[in-house]
């Protein structure tokens, strides 16, 4: 059961081979047993999970079960959950119990899924290693000395270690795809606007997008069917007809045109990672897909553009944490300015402060045109590169990250080294495009490598199909990490 797909779990529940309470107990026990060494969960609320499971079993007994009814899911601690802690990995929200559920939480609740717990994450989703969490770093199940990636590192580690069948995450510049790659699981960042941001703590609103992490693409499709869809409460939610994200899972890849950006296969990418990605592409070619070289000429500008725009938006979004209405408040403030300044000094960690300060600077008088406006212009050039590329190809493939998981502490001293690791994930975020990362093998140290597949706007079902075909012919996604055997 621990290594089963969501469809297999659904069948077992439907056939009454297991109840949701039993399944939930199984994952709760495993999560509890492994959390001491992985630190993947911030909150596990056993009573809440079992209450959800009992409700799911009752729903099934009444004949109202859907594909996710009774299946336990872990949620990134950025999604507001009524009645239990939503910390966003920060001291600022270490006492925050939301009065409402995020849209995504409501959707999974309506589908009858069980809330298994809230996963660890980089503070306010700001990081690529999960080391900035107030609750301490998450350890990679493939090598406990290494990071699982970030910012959805707790979700990726929980799925990799089979502590949860699947999980939610959010992706602003790669925060679903990069941890999926580093932890050896699959993760999808949908088209901007497909999943409602209501109740999802905001980092950079023009980029933030929720999405699923799971072992394989077929599971991601089932999760997308529940979490995607219009929500009037998010002004950027797209009002489009509902779609079945599993509809292209069995579509053959013959004739698929795969774009290979020359900028993604050059210097600066680890040789083992490139070799694994090329092997995966060779498999697609053997099935009749056609690889074409393309250019995404402004790729090297994507990281600078991202770190101007995302940080500018973050400095505005995080101004709401002022100690007045919820969250942390500094003790004995002498006046309101002192309350703001000390609350924020105490409540935010070092990386969040750095980012707020950079964001404040690039928006400040005299610098706006040189930084923010220029970044918005280069953002358009990056988006135009993709528009041009999709005239010649259906999907774009390359490595998700320039290297496999690094050691905890290895990149902490220099934020820029950490930021440069986002080079292949931020372009799709800036252009609002969907992209998936799937496991495609291991490096010489036994660490997972991720293949990123990017599609045009609303091509999620096609991406999931391409990934699923590959996963039917490979078993990288169903391998269990050696540090967390079943």
């Amino acid at each position, binding site marked *: 059961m621990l290594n089963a797909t969501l469809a297999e779990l659904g069948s077992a529940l439907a056939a009454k081979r297991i109840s949701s309470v039993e399944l939930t107990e199984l994952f709760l026990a495993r999560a509890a047993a492994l959390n001491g060494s992985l630190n993947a969960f911030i909150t596990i609320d056993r009573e809440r999970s079992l209450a959800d499971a009992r409700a799911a079993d009752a729903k099934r007994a009444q004949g109202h079960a859907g594909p996710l009814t009774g299946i336990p899911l872990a949620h990134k601690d950025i999604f507001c959950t009524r009645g239990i802690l939503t910390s966003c990995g920060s001291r600022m929200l270490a006492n925050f*119990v939301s*009065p409402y559920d995020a849209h995504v939480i409501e959707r999974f609740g309506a589908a009858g899924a069980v809330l298994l717990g809230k996963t660890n994450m980089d503070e306010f989703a700001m990081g690529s290693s999960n080391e900035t969490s107030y609750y301490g770093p998450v350890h990679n199940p493939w090598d406990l000395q290494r990071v699982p990636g970030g910012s959805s590192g707790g979700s990726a580690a929980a799925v990799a270690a089979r502590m949860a069948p699947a999980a939610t995450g959010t992706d602003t510049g790669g925060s679903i795809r990069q941890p999926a790659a580093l932890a050896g699981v699959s993760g999808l960042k949908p*088209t*901007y*606007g497909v999943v409602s941001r209501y109740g999802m703590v905001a980092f950079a609103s*023009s980029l933030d997008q929720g999405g699923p992490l799971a072992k394989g693409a077929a599971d991601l499709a089932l999760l997308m069917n529940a979490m995607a869809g219009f929500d*009037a409460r998010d*002004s*950027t939610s*797209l009002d489009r007809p509902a779609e079945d994200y599993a509809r292209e899972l069995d579509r053959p890849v013959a004739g698929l045109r795969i774009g290979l950006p020359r900028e993604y296969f050059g210097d600066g990418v680890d040789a083992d990672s490139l070799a694994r990605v090329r092997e995966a592409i060779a498999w697609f070619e053997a099935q009749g897909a056609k690889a074409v070289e393309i250019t995404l000429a402004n790729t090297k*500008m994507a*990281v*600078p*553009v991202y*770190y*101007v725009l995302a940080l500018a938006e973050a400095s505005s979004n995080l101004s709401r944490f002022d*100690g*007045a*209405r*919820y*969250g*942390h*408040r500094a003790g004995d*403030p*002498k*006046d309101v*300015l*002192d*309350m703001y*300044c*000390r609350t*924020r*000094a105490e409540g935010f960690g070092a990386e969040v402060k*750095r980012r*707020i*300060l*950079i964001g*404040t*600077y690039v928006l400040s008088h005299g610098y706006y045109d040189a*930084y923010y406006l*220029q*970044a*918005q*212009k*280069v*953002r*358009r*050039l990056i*988006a135009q590169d993709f*528009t041009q590329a999709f005239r010649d190809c259906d999907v774009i493939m390359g490595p998700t990250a320039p290297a496999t998981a690094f050691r905890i502490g290895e990149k902490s001293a*220099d*934020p*820029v080294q950490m*930021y*440069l690791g986002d080079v292949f994930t931020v372009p799709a*975020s800036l*252009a*609002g495009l969907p992209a998936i990362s799937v496991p495609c093998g291991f490096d010489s140290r036994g660490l997972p490598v991720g293949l990123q597949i990017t599609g045009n*706007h*609303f091509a999620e079902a096609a991406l999931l199909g391409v990934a699923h075909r590959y996963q039917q012919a490979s078993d990288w996604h169903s391998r269990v990490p050696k540090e967390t055997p079943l």
Partner: protein
Amino acid sequence: MSLSPDQIQRIAHLARIAVTPAEAEELGVQLNRVLALVDELQQTDTAGVAPMSHALESVLPGGQRLRPDAVVEPDRREEFLAIAPAVDAGLYLVPKVIE
């Protein structure tokens, strides 16, 4: 562009984050590295390029949706006040703002 500790303090004040002199020194080193990275943007020729403010631009040519100007939220005052650091008589309490 390189930030001095004084400039760091000015930005920190704008951001309403208290920063000690020692922190300002350390932040200066790190922030200057990040600024050197984002300064690379100046190398790109953007003459005649319109700024792109939103990823939706390319899929929503009509711009963002507006909702009718109607009251839709229920009154949940008690629930929201219950999670505040300090309240009194249905109001959020903060240190005195006006002398």
